[in-house]
C-alpha cells in the first residue's frame, strides 16, 4: 500500500507520523490544533441513508489548514468528533469489494480500517507518507510497526451498504500505542464490528524494537482520550488472548504463496492486509463454504518482502478441557459446549525457505445464516 507523500514543513512543531500499517495512525503531533470538523452522524436509527458533511473551519491565515483544504478533504464524508479525540468516516461498500458470500470480505474491512486510520492522521494534520515521523523519531530513525491486529465482525455489510467507522488511538503501556475502531451500519445504527491494533516502535535501520520515549509519547497524547477508551472493554476479551504457535504436523496447509506486485507497499514490504488473505488460504474449504469469519487475531512477527515465498498453515485450536470430535475424517475442535456452530483455528505463516515465523493468528468462525 502506498502512501501519499505530503509535506507540511512549515511548522516545526508539526510532527509527521510514520505508519507501518499503511496509513494507520501512530503518534500525533505536538502541535495543538483546535478540533476541526464536527462530524458525527446522528445516532438515530431511522433514516436509511444519512449524508453528513464534514465542516472544516477555515482558519484563514494558517498555511497548513489551507493546504489541507482541498476539495477531497473538505468534502470527505468524515471528520473529527466534537471533542476532537476520535475520528469518524462513512464508507459505501463497492461491488468489487464483495466476495463469495455476497458480503464485504474481511480484507475489505481491513482496508477500510486502514483507510480511516490514515484519514484520521491526515485530518489532524499528519501526512500519510510512509516516512512521516515526528522530529524526535526521525532523528532517532524510529518507525511504528504493527504488532497485533484483532478484528471482530458481527455482521458483514453487503454491496452498497453504508458503514460508519470511528477510530481513535491511545497510549499502551511503555512500549506501544494502540488504535481502536468501531464499525456501525449507518442504516440501522447497530455495531457490526470492532477492532483494535497494537503498535510498537522500531529502529528503522537495525529493525529492533525500542521503548517509546517520553518525549515521543508527549507528542501524541494530546490527541488521545484522557481516560482509557477501549473498543474491547470487557475483561478477558479475545483481543488479549495469547496465540499459541502451531506445531507440526499441521492439519491444513497451502504452500508456496507469493506476494503480488499489488501487495507491496512503497518500501517493498508486504502490506498487512495481504497476510489476512494468506491466513485464509489454508482454511479448509468445508468451513469456508458453511461458516463466516467472526474473529481474526494476527500477531505480526517478521516482515515479508517481494521475493519471499510463504507457507500458510492451519489447525484447530483446542481449548482446555475440550474434546476432539472426528467428523468425516477431519477433526475439528468444538470448544463451546452450547455452540456447536462455532469453530476456532490457529494459523501460522512462515517462510518456505527456512521456516521462520512471519505471523501467527487465530480465527473464529460462525455458521452462516442462510
Amino acid at each position, binding site marked *: *500500500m*502506498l*502512501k*501519499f*507523500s505530503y509535506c507540511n514543513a512549515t511548522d516545526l512543531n508539526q510532527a509527521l507520523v510514520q505508519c507501518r500499517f*499503511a*496509513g494507520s495512525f501512530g503518534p500525533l503531533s505536538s502541535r495543538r490544533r483546535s478540533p476541526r*470538523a*464536527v*462530524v458525527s*452522524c*446522528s445516532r438515530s436509527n431511522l*433514516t*436509511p*441513508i*444519512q*449524508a*453528513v*458533511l*464534514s*465542516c*472544516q473551519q477555515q482558519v484563514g491565515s494558517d498555511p497548513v489548514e489551507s493546504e489541507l483544504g482541498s*476539495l*477531497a*478533504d*473538505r*468534502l*470527505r*464524508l468524515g471528520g473529527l468528533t466534537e471533542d476532537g479525540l476520535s475520528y469518524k468516516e*462513512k464508507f*459505501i461498500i*463497492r*461491488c*468489487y469489494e*464483495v*466476495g*463469495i*458470500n*455476497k458480503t464485504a*470480505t474481511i*480484507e*475489505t474491512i481491513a*482496508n477500510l480500517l*486502514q*483507510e480511516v486510520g490514515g*484519514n484520521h492522521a491526515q485530518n489532524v494534520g499528519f501526512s*500519510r507518507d510512509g516516512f512521516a515521523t515526528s522530529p524526535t523519531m526521525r532523528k532517532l530513525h524510529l518507525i511504528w510497526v504493527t504488532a497485533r491486529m484483532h478484528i471482530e465482525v458481527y455482521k458483514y455489510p453487503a454491496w*452498497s451498504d453504508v458503514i460508519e467507522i470511528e477510530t481513535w488511538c491511545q497510549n499502551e503501556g511503555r512500549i506501544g500505542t494502540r488504535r481502536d475502531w468501531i464499525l456501525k451500519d449507518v442504516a440501522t445504527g447497530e455495531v457490526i464490528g470492532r477492532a483494535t491494533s497494537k503498535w510498537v516502535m522500531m529502529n528503522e535501520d537495525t529493525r529492533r524494537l525500542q521503548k517509546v520515549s517520553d518525549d515521543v509519547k508527549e507528542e501524541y497524547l494530546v490527541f488521545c482520550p484522557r481516560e482509557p477508551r477501549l473498543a474491547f472493554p470487557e475483561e478477558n476479551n479475545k483481543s488479549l488472548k495469547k496465540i499459541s504457535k502451531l506445531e507440526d504436523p499441521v492439519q491444513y496447509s497451502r504452500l*508456496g504463496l507469493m506476494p*503480488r*506486485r*499489488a501487495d*507491496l507497499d*512503497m518500501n517493498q514490504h508486504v*502490506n498487512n*492486509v495481504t497476510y489476512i*488473505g*494468506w491466513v*485464509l488460504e489454508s482454511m479448509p474449504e468445508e468451513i*469456508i463454504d458453511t461458516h463466516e469469519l467472526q474473529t481474526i487475531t494476527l500477531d505480526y512477527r517478521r516482515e515479508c518482502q517481494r521475493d519471499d515465498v510463504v507457507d500458510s498453515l492451519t489447525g484447530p485450536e483446542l481449548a482446555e478441557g475440550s474434546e476432539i470430535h472426528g467428523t468425516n475424517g477431519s477433526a475439528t475442535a468444538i470448544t463451546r459446549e452450547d455452540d456447536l456452530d462455532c469453530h476456532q483455528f490457529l494459523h501460522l505463516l512462515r517462510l518456505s525457505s527456512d521456516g521462520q515465523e512471519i505471523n501467527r493468528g487465530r480465527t473464529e468462525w460462525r455458521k452462516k445464516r442462510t
Partner: protein
Amino acid sequence: MVATAATSSFFPITSSPDSIDSKNKKLGNGSTNLGGIKLKPSASSGSLQVKANAQAPPKINGTTVVMTPVEGFPSEDAASSLPPRTFINQLPDWSMLLAAMTTIFLAAEKQWMMLDWKPKRPDMLIDPFGIGRIVQDGLVFRQNFSIRSYEIGADRTASIETLMNHLQETAINHCKSAGLLGDGFGATPGMCRKNLIWVVTRMQVVVDRYPTWGDVVQVDTWVSASGKNGMRRDWLVSNSKTGEILTRASSVWVMMNKLTRRLSKIPEEVRGEIEPHFMNSDPVVAEDNRKLVKLDDSTAQYVRKGLTPRWSDLDVNQHVNNVKYVGWILESTPLGIVESHELCSMTLEYRRECGRDSVLQSLTAVSGVGNLGNMGEIECQHLLQLEEGSEIVRGRTQWRPKNAKSFGKMDQVPAQSA
C-alpha cells in the same frame, strides 16, 4: 468468454422527467462524437439544480451531487452566479424550490455545514454515497469515486486495477439504477427467459493521467450497439474538480446462451428492450484492430508461473473477477518497465473464465521500443493461460516513460548556455 457480474445490459430505464439533464452542456445529444466533447466538470459549486426538496446537497468524498433539474427550471452553470433573494421575489410559485436553493447557497457559503439529510424520494437519484445517477437523457450513468489510500500503486497514483474496478462498479450500478439486476448478469427479462447473458470479449483502456490519492474522479458510462449482435460499453473518467479527461475505455460484449455456452444473436424481443438505451455514438477509444498474437514458451521473454486465485479474487459466482487478470498480466511484465514507465494503453481479449482451483501462468514479450514515433514508449504482448494450456486472456500494453510530459519540455531546452 467471460461473463461477469458486472456486465452491463440494457433494460428499460424508468425515466422520469426529472432525469433529463437537458440544460447542461455535457455529452451532447447522443449523435455527437463523444470523444471530442469536453466533459463539463461537476465542480464543487456548480450545477446545483434542485428538485422540489428543501434539503442541502450531500457530499461524499469530494463528489458533488448534481441534482437533476426539474424540467423547465432554468439551470445555472455556476451556482454562485444566482442571486437567491431576488429570485425568490420574482417567482413566488417556486417558493419551495427557492427555499431549497437558498438553503443550498447558505450552506455553500458556510462551506459545507454539517447537516443531516434524508432523501425524501428514492427516485430522485441523489447520490450521497457515490451510488451514481443517470444523466444525459437517461442514457448515461455517472458516479464519482474518491481514491482511497489502499488503491494507490507503487508510484502513489491509482493503480490500473483501481481504475478498472471503478469501471466495473459503474457498469453494475448503471444496471442497478435502471432497475434491473435480476440474475446478477444484468440480463433483461427477455434475456432471462431465453437463458441469455452478456459476456465481455474485448476491452480497451487508454490512460492519459492517473489520479492520485485524494482525487475525486467522475466516471460516465453508456452503451451502444456493436455490429448487429453485440453491445459496446464505453467509459469516460475525468477529474471531478478540473474536468480533465483521465481515462477512456471501451468494451465489447456479445450475447451467449448460458446453458449451451454458444454465442447467440440478439432476439427481436430483447432488441426491443435494449435498443432504446443505446446511445448513438462513436467509440470513446479508437479501436485498435491489430491482431493480438498468442505467445508461447519460445516467444515469451518473461514467464510467471504458479498464479493462483485467492478467496478475495472471486466474485459472487466463484469466478475470478475480470480485473484480477490485469494484475496477473502485470506480474510477468519486467520490473524495469513497471518502475520507469506507466501503462498508457491496454487492449485485452477475454477467452475463458477461471475459478478457484485454476493455476495460471502469465507470459510477456516486449514487442516494441520507441514505437509510434514516441520516444521511450514500449509495447508488450501478454498471455494469461492455465498451466495446462487454455487461454484466459490475451493482451497488449503500451507504456510511456513516467513524467513523459516533462520529458517533452526538456527536449526544448537549449543545448548549451555559456
